[in-house]
């Protein structure tokens, strides 16, 4: 028996007769099965090449255990540093009204004139007051709807007030406007340019795919108008200030390549292949729009391989893979709300409904619209910051740690995965559940397995591509041919 000490890690035996090992802070290694067995039994000679690799990736330590633990702790701290940037993303539901009626819309969009569902200016300013009490130095305000363009005066008032507070409190505030763009006017877009508001819009694919779901209130496709307004927005704001997101439905699931091509054709910087969120309106239309998570994983990975190939010629990241790859390969924290433990809900992001109610996530708000206010943290008009973001949020945080969830506690992907107590509650009536057959788990386990397969077989160019996505440095890939 040799004198090394094992450091904490999780592992999974793969179909390729090796073992994927991930240590407590997310460093990983593939090891042949027999070597793994010998390693566990403390029988691996300390001059073996595999032993060196295990040591290098902090799966064991000898006399240097102190510094090994120091390193593990440092990286662990960095990964969890999103907890210090508390709370950076604040979403304001400016109105529930919308000029469109998309088949998968989760907001149960009220008719165009139902001004009952508008946030009034007073509530908006109260929300801003609360937002600026968050310790973060970089609050990000996201205007959501419905369609925020339909209740514009609240957007402009909020921006002006937030800018004032930011100056006074020496914080750096940024704004995002989530809009379908189809109702956008030149004045509104010019306002965005003046106040540095980034635009995030929705594009599902080419005309056929986009129009299949994204329709106006009379049921007509919106693709054509969208393209006109996209051109206008880019013209006024600049290309890099207008981003687009897609939602995969049964209409596009088999055509993710075409969707990618459409994004490329329109000169987008990259694409985020998002699965459908199975709540809200979408649940009622599940039969036509939905698909199983297993199928999504399969199609997603297929599309990702296609995008990888594309990247040998042009820099075009897929953002979900970028996010997961940076969690796997880099020691830095990623600020993505959905994949944190404790859950990002409330900690990394919070949402303010039109009536001033505060929720830890969009789904929590949706749940309230369905009649269950279980996750409502309070209201900006009646509660103070401490009550909402300390007392009540803490209760939620206790039940939102992967480290105490089955089987995540033992899962090899724990360091890269996240948890969503709201979704769990929606599915089972409980914030914590056995994740084994949860769609969330099927998706993440499947995709992570696919990404690790890519890493295992990655050649130099593939590595360059992956790192170019993580670092945003397109130059890493030699595209001279």
């Amino acid at each position, binding site marked *: 028996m040799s004198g090394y000490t094992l450091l904490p890690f999780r592992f999974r035996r793969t179909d390729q007769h090796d073992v994927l090992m991930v240590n407590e802070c997310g460093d990983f290694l593939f090891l042949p099965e027999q070597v793994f067995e010998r390693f566990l039994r403390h029988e691996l000679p300390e001059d073996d090449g595999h032993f*060196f690799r295990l040591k290098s990736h*902090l799966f064991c330590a000898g006399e*240097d255990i*102190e510094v090994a633990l120091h*390193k593990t702790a440092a990286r662990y701290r960095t990964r969890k540093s999103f907890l210090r940037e508390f709370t950076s993303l604040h979403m304001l539901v400016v109105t529930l009204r919308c000029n469109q009626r998309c088949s998968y819309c989760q907001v149960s969009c009220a008719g165009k004139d139902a001004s009952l569902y508008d946030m009034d200016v007073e509530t908006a300013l109260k929300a801003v007051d609360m937002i600026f009490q968050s310790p973060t130095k970089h609050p990000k305000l996201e205007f959501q709807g419905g369609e925020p363009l339909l209740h514009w005066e609240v957007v402009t008032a909020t921006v002006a007030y937030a800018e004032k507070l930011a100056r006074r409190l020496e914080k750096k505030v940024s704004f995002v406007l989530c809009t379908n763009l189809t109702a956008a006017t030149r004045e509104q877009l010019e306002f965005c340019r003046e106040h540095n508001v980034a635009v995030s819009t929705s594009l599902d694919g080419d005309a056929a795919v986009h129009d299949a779901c994204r329709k106006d209130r009379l049921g007509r496709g919106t693709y054509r108008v969208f393209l006109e307004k996209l051109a206008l927005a880019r013209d006024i704001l600049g290309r890099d200030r207008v981003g687009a997101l897609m939602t995969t439905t049964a209409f596009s699931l088999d055509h993710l390549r075409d969707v990618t091509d459409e994004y490329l054709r329109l000169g987008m910087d990259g694409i985020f292949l998002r699965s459908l969120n199975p709540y809200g309106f979408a649940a009622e239309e599940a039969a036509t729009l939905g698909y199983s998570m297993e199928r999504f994983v399969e199609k997603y990975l297929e599309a990702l391989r296609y995008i990888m190939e594309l990247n040998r010629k042009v820099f075009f990241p897929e953002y979900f893979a970028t996010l997961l790859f940076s969690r796997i390969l*880099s020691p830095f924290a990623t600020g993505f709300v959905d994949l944190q433990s404790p859950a990002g809900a409330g900690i990394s992001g919070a949402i303010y409904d039109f009536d001033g109610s505060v929720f830890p996530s969009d789904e929590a708000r949706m749940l309230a619209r369905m009649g269950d206010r279980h996750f409502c943290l309070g209201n900006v008009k009646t509660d103070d910051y401490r009550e909402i973001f300390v007392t009540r949020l803490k209760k939620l945080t206790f039940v939102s740690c992967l480290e105490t969830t089955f089987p995540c506690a033992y899962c090899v992907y724990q360091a890269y995965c996240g948890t969503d107590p709201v979704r769990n509650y929606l599915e089972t009536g409980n914030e914590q559940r056995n994740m084994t057959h949860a769609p969330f788990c099927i998706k993440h386990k499947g995709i992570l397995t696919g990404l690790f397969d890519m890493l295992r077989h990655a050649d130099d160019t593939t590595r360059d591509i992956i*790192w170019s996505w993580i670092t945003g440095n397109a130059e890493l890939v030699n595209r001279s041919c």
Partner: protein
Amino acid sequence: MLTLKGRASEAFSSFVGEVTFAGRPFYARSRAVLVCEELTHAAMGYKGCITSGGRGSWFHPHHIYGVEQPGLLHEGDIVAMDGTGTIEVLWEEGSSQNCLFLTENCNCRCVMCPQPPAQSDPARFLRQAEEVLELIRGRSISDCCITGGEPTLAGKAFFDILRRSAREHPEALISVLTNGRLFSDRAFVRRLAGIPAENVLFCVSLHSELDAVHDAMAGVRGSCAQTQQGIYNLAGYGFFVEIRTVISQYNCRYLAEFAEHLGNYFPFCAHVAFMGLELHGHAETNRDRVEVSPEAYAPCVKDAVLTLVRRGIPVSLYNIPLCLCPAEVRGYARRSISDWKNIYLPRCRSCALREECCGFFSTSSALPETFIKPFTSGGHV
């Protein structure tokens, strides 16, 4: 260090002065050393003189005569001269490679140490360093490197000299060449408090993250852990840290994993330098154990460099001639060998990249001649 030889006018003990060719007014001569062809009465009142000509008279200051190439000196250089006829250039005006040498002692015993440590009294070096600092005060300098041996062994004097250089020369980059071991001690790092961190770079030698490998190279068991702890402590105090890794038989095969380890656990490091061997001192004695052929190290170095480049960590290759660098990473090779100590082979004369190439250490006992292939113009082989 550039050293000139001549004969001393008489036995005198070592002193430090500032070189002038142009001459100085009488009142400003007490710290200056006049360099001239012949000693005349114009040579009076100086701290010392250097001449290519003959010996002066009794009324001349201490001088060294019969010096062959006094033209290698520059106006403003700072030299130490002594009664054995030796002139050492302690500070070369206008050079970016100036050092303050604090001690010959070291607490490592590296198998590839080009300047094997010696148990000598550091008092003379410390005095010289103080005098150099005194003389360059108020000058605008670009770089200053505090080195040894292991400079931290000078203890209080080390902190004083570092503090003084960093404070008096905020315009310069002050680098410290160290094995970092002593910084693993919290009480020791704490003594850095009050030293400005903005213009100080600690260049720490770490040859591997694996203690078996690093300790074998550094010759001291446990030094790997101490050096790494030292790096964390230095970074914790807000100092920039560069990691310097000598490529040898011991660590060559593991360089790519090492680079990955740096990306994972030392992502804060400001720069990583992989360095070719100087086959001198211990490296020469232990040649069989340390030397790696360019063929063997090329792929390892390539992988290691690309690993860091992908992660956005600045990286350089020192002491590796361009024709021995794999093409993918040639852009990271620097002209690292000091001008007074680099040479080229006769066949380098036809090489198109000679100007950018570091060449070889004139001190190395052997050169990998068979691998040297000049580039034809355009840079393509």
